[in-house]
């Protein structure tokens, strides 16, 4: 799964730390998600969408490997 957290974060001019505070997770979690090392839970995905004021599907995108 791909995600555009980094892009959305840049649009809003946020650091990883501020996003982490807003989403009530640790900075490591944000970092791991941006690097594609961690797939967040649905709840966290929805929270991020709310923070960025976009749809979840605009932040997270399926890739071909996700169907295997």
């Amino acid at each position, binding site marked *: 799964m791909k995600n555009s957290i980094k892009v959305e974060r840049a649009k809003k001019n946020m650091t990883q730390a501020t996003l982490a505070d807003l989403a009530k*997770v640790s900075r490591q979690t944000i970092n791991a998600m*941006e690097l594609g090392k*961690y797939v967040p839970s649905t709840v966290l995905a929805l929270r991020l969408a709310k923070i960025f004021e976009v749809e979840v599907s605009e932040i997270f995108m399926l890739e071909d490997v996700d169907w295997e």
Partner: protein
Amino acid sequence: MIPSVIFGCMNLFLEYEPDFFDFNVPTIFVDKVFGNGHFFGLVENNIFNEILGVFVIISSLIVAFSREKLEDEYISKIRLESLVWAVYLNYAILIISFLFLFDMTFFWVMIFNMFTIILFFIIRFHWQIYSLKKASENEE
């Protein structure tokens, strides 16, 4: 945790058992060397190692499972992964010692095996958290 581990090792290796810890203690099963065993009774025992064992286990449980400052879903995932990993490693070591160690040496391995599972967990979990923190510091 550390002092009880130190005393625990003293108790194991030097057979250090202070006399004032000698007590008659209740037991669930009395296993006599000669004659039949029976359920429930009193045996004379030095309770020093029991006290230490309980201390080691409780303190390492506290160290292992106390929450991080910010315990989120990713941290809990790492926690679970580390626990599974520790179980695998522990039993891998146990299998090897089953096959290649005998008699008293195996008995010693069994003693340590009671505590190593949680020790492996603590090491692996905190190492993972540490390397994550390091990785997220040079990012921005």
